[in-house]
């Protein structure tokens, strides 16, 4: 890829397609790796969530005002719709974690379309990796606590009621999919969704900019097409970003529910 870019760069006004390089940021002043755009977005996003929820809960009353209603809606959505439908009553203990997870992912996703920030922090694999590991630890922990160490893996790898020969094939497959594949897909789904979404937005915006600035005449007028498309895509991205937060939380809840269930 870089060779292509180099070749294009040699020709002067060739369009440089955005790539993974656009997801790397130089540190701010001082040069510490902890002071980059993604880390700043993570901190700001967390602070925003904390402050908004604090405002919502500060004057909580029986009849909610607008802020409290929104906060309660988010909390109630995770509590009743996600946890209530998957884990059930004993899922109450996981509601705080899952709600925080939902807000954290949603806000860091949405930072990709918020002006000025305009970078989804979750497209950096570090954040989803950590969250997926936490979910992985939680669902394995509750499964082992519920069924015992051997009982948990027995329930996972040897679902009852199948012919003996199937287990030769099924047991390693189940182990592989539950213990190894699950955290990886959780991580990659979120990361790469945000990565690809941001990349597409970059292509549209940078392409339009290239047409407008570097070319002239008819091509500059044509830049309206990628710009318009980028606006449409921004709305689509907003949808995908919330959806991905929902999917991450839903899958975490499903994994916990599966670990708690008596029959896998």
């Amino acid at each position, binding site marked *: *890829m870089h060779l292509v870019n180099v070749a294009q760069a040699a020709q002067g006004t060739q369009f440089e397609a955005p790539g993974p390089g656009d997801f790397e940021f130089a540190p701010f002043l001082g040069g510490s790796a902890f002071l980059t755009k993604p880390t700043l977005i993570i*901190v700001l996003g967390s602070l925003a*969530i904390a402050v908004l929820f604090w405002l919502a809960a500060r004057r909580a009353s029986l009849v909610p005002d607008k802020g409290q209603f929104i*906060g*309660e809606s988010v909390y109630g959505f995770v509590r009743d719709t996600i946890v209530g439908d998957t884990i059930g009553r004993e899922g109450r203990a996981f509601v705080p974690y899952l709600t925080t997870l939902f807000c954290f992912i949603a806000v860091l996703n949405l930072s990709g379309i918020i002006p000025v920030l305009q970078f989804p922090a979750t497209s950096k694999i570090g954040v989803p990796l950590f969250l997926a590991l936490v979910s992985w630890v939680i669902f394995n922990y509750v499964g082992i606590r519920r069924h015992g160490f051997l009982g948990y893996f027995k329930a996972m790898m040897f679902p009852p009621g199948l012919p003996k020969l199937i287990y030769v094939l099924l047991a390693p497959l189940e182990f592989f999919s539950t213990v190894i594949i699950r955290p990886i897909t959780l991580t990659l789904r979120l990361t790469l969704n945000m990565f690809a979404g941001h990349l597409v937005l970059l292509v549209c915006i940078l392409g339009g900019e290239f047409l407008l600035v570097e070319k002239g005449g008819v091509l500059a007028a044509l830049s309206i097409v990628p710009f318009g498309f980028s606006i449409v895509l921004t709305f689509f991205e907003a949808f995908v970003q919330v959806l991905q937060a929902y999917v991450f939380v839903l899958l975490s809840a499903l994994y916990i529910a599966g670990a708690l269930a008596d029959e896998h």
Partner: protein
Amino acid sequence: MQTLATVLAAEGAPNPLLPHVSEIIVGAVAFTLLLLFLKSKVFPVFERVYAERHDAIEGGMERAKRLEEEAKQTLEQYREQLAEARHEAARLREEAREQGAVIIAEMREQAQAEARRLTAAAHQQIEADKAAALAQLRIHVGTLATELASRIVGEVLQDDERQRAVVDRFLDGLEAEATAAAAAGSATVGAAGEASTSRGGAGRGAGGS
């Protein structure tokens, strides 16, 4: 890790699947603090508000239900009592009627018995009086008639035998007349007359002998 990133960047194409340690750490710390804050300060408030709201709605509904239940029970009791009272009244009325009927029947019975007793006593008295009167009459009639006859005849009828025969003949004539008159009358009177006649006859016979 920054070195790795710069190395990758220098190579031209950084790997998007390689995590930056700084981002993991910042993300982990931020997420953990956020979770602790929300779990301790915000979510308990929401849960409390949910519980209160649930209480307010469900509690109100439960209170209303309880009141309705009470009202229904009271109505039921009232109806039951009313029905009982009606039943009781009907029973009393029935009883009174029965008792009244019994009393009336008893009274009637008593009155009839008394009446019968009085009637019987009166009958007996009448019979006795009649018998006494007849007996006295027979004696007095004999002497009176004799006296009358002797005054008329002008001589004393000394012969008792004749005297008695005359009287008897007279009386027999009277009695025959009376019998003929009373043939259509009551049998009792006739019988009594006959009885008295025969008795008189017997007395006469006895007196004669």
